[in-house]
């Protein structure tokens, strides 16, 4: 009996030490932590996917009810925007035709059309200090780390962790996200750095190419991590005069994203390179 009592007194300190050990282990072997997380995510993602359907109906219902209140103004705004866009469509079609004839004369080698795969966003995988989403994939998917996620409007982020049935996409708003971008007006380069807030910041632009308010921002092929020209967002200056980017992608209401395989291996997260080494060793 005394032994048992002593043991029961010791459980709390033992588990306390174990939790600190867990912290060190998670830091020392990032791959193990990642595998454990993705195993949990894999186990839960079918459940989340089943839940996502009815929940998105509820969300759509709520959104529909909110839209009812502003139906009239929204309609007027859309009609006005439609007129404007129709004029732009004519311009775009003319430019497209002109571009095609010019490229034909230059013997331009077209970029290969990237293959893509569409996946449902089943859960928020960010936690308190990160911005990420979890995708549900089929069991025999061909998704790889570093693939680029886009929604219907623009860049969403990149695949950073991969399970057998799920993948985690780090959003461009995450504080660990860095995206090389081009300012479309000045063709200047910059880095888009996430802050965990809704608007990532522009940093490291070259002197003389100050980002202009309202300028479009697209990805740049620098560092071979992204293809050039994917739409990212529009420059907005914050009240403290910091250039930020309002993303085109609707990052707070992602439902479906497309994962593009551009075959770029420029920047692969460290966990992936560790995995590749261990595979090579085998």
């Amino acid at each position, binding site marked *: 009996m005394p032994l048992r009592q002593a043991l029961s007194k010791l459980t709390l300190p033992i*588990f306390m030490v174990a939790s600190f050990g867990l*912290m060190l282990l998670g830091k020392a072997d990032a791959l193990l932590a990642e595998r454990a997380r993705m195993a949990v995510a894999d186990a*839960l993602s079918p459940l989340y996917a089943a839940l996502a359907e009815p929940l998105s109906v509820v969300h759509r219902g709520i959104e529909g009810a909110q839209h009812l209140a502003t139906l009239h103004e929204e309609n007027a705004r859309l009609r006005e925007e439609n007129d404007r866009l129709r004029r732009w469509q004519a311009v775009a079609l003319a430019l497209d035709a002109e571009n095609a004839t010019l490229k034909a004369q230059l013997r331009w080698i077209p970029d290969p059309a990237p293959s893509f795969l569409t996946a449902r966003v089943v859960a928020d995988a960010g936690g308190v200090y990160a911005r990420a989403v979890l995708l549900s994939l089929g069991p025999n998917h061909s998704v790889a780390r570093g693939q680029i996620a886009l929604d219907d409007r623009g860049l969403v982020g990149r695949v950073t962790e991969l399970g057998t049935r799920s993948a985690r996409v780090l959003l461009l708003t995450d504080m*660990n996200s860095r995206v090389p971008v081009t300012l479309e007006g000045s063709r200047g380069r910059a880095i888009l750095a996430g802050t965990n807030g809704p608007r990532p910041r522009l940093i490291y632009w070259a002197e003389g190419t100050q980002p202009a308010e309202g300028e479009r921002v697209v990805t740049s092929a620098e560092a071979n991590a992204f293809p050039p020209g994917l739409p990212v967002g529009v420059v907005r200056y914050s009240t403290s005069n910091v250039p930020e980017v309002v993303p085109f992608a609707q990052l707070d209401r992602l439902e479906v994203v497309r994962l593009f395989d551009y075959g770029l291996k420029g920047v692969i997260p460290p966990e992936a390179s560790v995995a590749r080494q261990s595979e090579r060793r085998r």
Partner: protein
Amino acid sequence: MDDRTPGIRPRQTVGRRLDAMARWAFPLAMTVALVLITSAPFRLPGQAELQNAAALACVWFWSVFRPLSMPPPAVFLVGLLADLLDFAPPGVGVVTLLVAHAVALRWRRSLTRQGFLMIWLAFVTMAIALAAVQWLLTSMLTLRLVPLGPALFQAMLAAGLYPLLAVLLARAHRTIAEPANA
């Protein structure tokens, strides 16, 4: 119900034992279920903070009122699950929940005598302190100063959530989680 209390009690059948065991396991099962539910894609703003706050409130309540049903291994399990679901550095949630458990064990006798308000105040103080600890550990483990706002928000959320949860948990504590009812 142990052998030291006198009285007439029903025979220990298999069914009764299973019933008692289920009642004993209720706090852990309920906490795990709550952690899983709050990780489902409801797209509530601040859902990750809600998950941590709910786990903390449950562990605190059961550690104060029924520590036998919330032993350190159970606390460890809840913390690990929350960390893995949250994609947080593993161990951070475990440490904070174990500290909450230890504090609850140390003060539970005097706290339960003081009534709800004191228990809640102690919980709020602890939630703020633990949010700071969690923020510090996360910053250390990710080698980056993470924003302090979400930590504060989480502490406030926990403070607000506790009375609501306590009403439900206190009811469960007297009814379905009571092994003596078996």
